[in-house]
């Protein structure tokens, strides 16, 4: 049962398939969480202005603004939001840039294990 007090997770991914997979796994792990979706960075930033989520799962490779840049902007205005970048591209340089901005990493492919790990990162 979710209420407006329940934690809100915003899933940002240009792939509908990926959003569905993440949403399904999270709903299973944390049935009380509310889940919102955005298909690109601009929509995500607009959604955050309307209601700031507790957590953001952010794809990196998206048309338009990259997830990395969007994550930086979110951290600037809403430092309390916990963000995990969801990507197969975990290079040291990217990881360091993200970690210095206070952003976590969750490895793609999306699996129950990788999403469980992301949920743990959010709740740390």
């Amino acid at each position: 049962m979710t209420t407006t007090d329940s934690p809100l997770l915003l899933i940002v991914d240009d792939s509908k398939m990926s959003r569905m997979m993440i949403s399904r796994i999270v709903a299973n792990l944390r049935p009380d969480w509310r889940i919102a979706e955005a298909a690109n960075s601009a929509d995500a930033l607009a959604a955050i202005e309307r209601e700031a989520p507790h957590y953001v799962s952010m794809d990196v490779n998206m048309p338009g603004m990259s997830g990395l840049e969007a994550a930086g902007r979110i951290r600037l205005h809403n430092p309390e939001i916990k963000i995990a970048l969801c990507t197969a591209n975990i290079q040291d340089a990217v990881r360091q840039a993200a970690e210095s901005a206070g952003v976590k990493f969750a490895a793609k492919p999306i699996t129950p294990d990788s999403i469980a790990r992301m949920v743990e990162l959010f709740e740390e």
Partner: protein
Amino acid sequence: MAFDESGHDEPTLDELQLDALGELFNLGVGRAANSLSLIVKDEVELSAPSISFAYPSQITQALLDSEFKELSMVAMDFSGPFEARAVLLFPERNALAILSHMLDPNMPPEELSEFEQEAMCEIGNIILNACMSALADEFGVEFMGSLPEHHFSDTESLPLFGGDQKEVLLILQIHLSIRQERINGHLLFLLSVSSLHALLTCVDSYLTRLGIR
């Protein structure tokens, strides 16, 4: 999809199949970026935007601006549940720019070009294998890959695409950036019509297994 010639069976992919294929290739390209960054010891940005299809005879129009006449390409043949010739293709001067980052940014172009075939094979090996292994892992299947072969070509004569009208090209434009330098290339997968159907069967079982359809 860009199919305007008459007499072809148009492969029709629905939104979810295209989405799934795009994500799987992005996964592969993401892994490849990670490997390439270890080689160039710097951040590599590598992204694969949307998928399109063309017939081999349409490749010149479908792919290449007239400004890019000289091409450097690496091909590998993969066999498994379906067969595909995978080709990584860069405009020649972009290929040299990548090599300069891999080897030594101060090396003069004429020396660089000595290493071009070997180094392009290595890059092709990384990117093409990463894409095919992402498909293999997610589909739960196995592909055998041939050794990479390097070819120089121009847009007028692409010997790898014999113009067999029964084959279809799946095209991904890729953007690669190393140290602020932006390089555009293409990933091509040449599939027979029956292989394309086998690929789509894999995609459908994958989506079914995930409970998405």
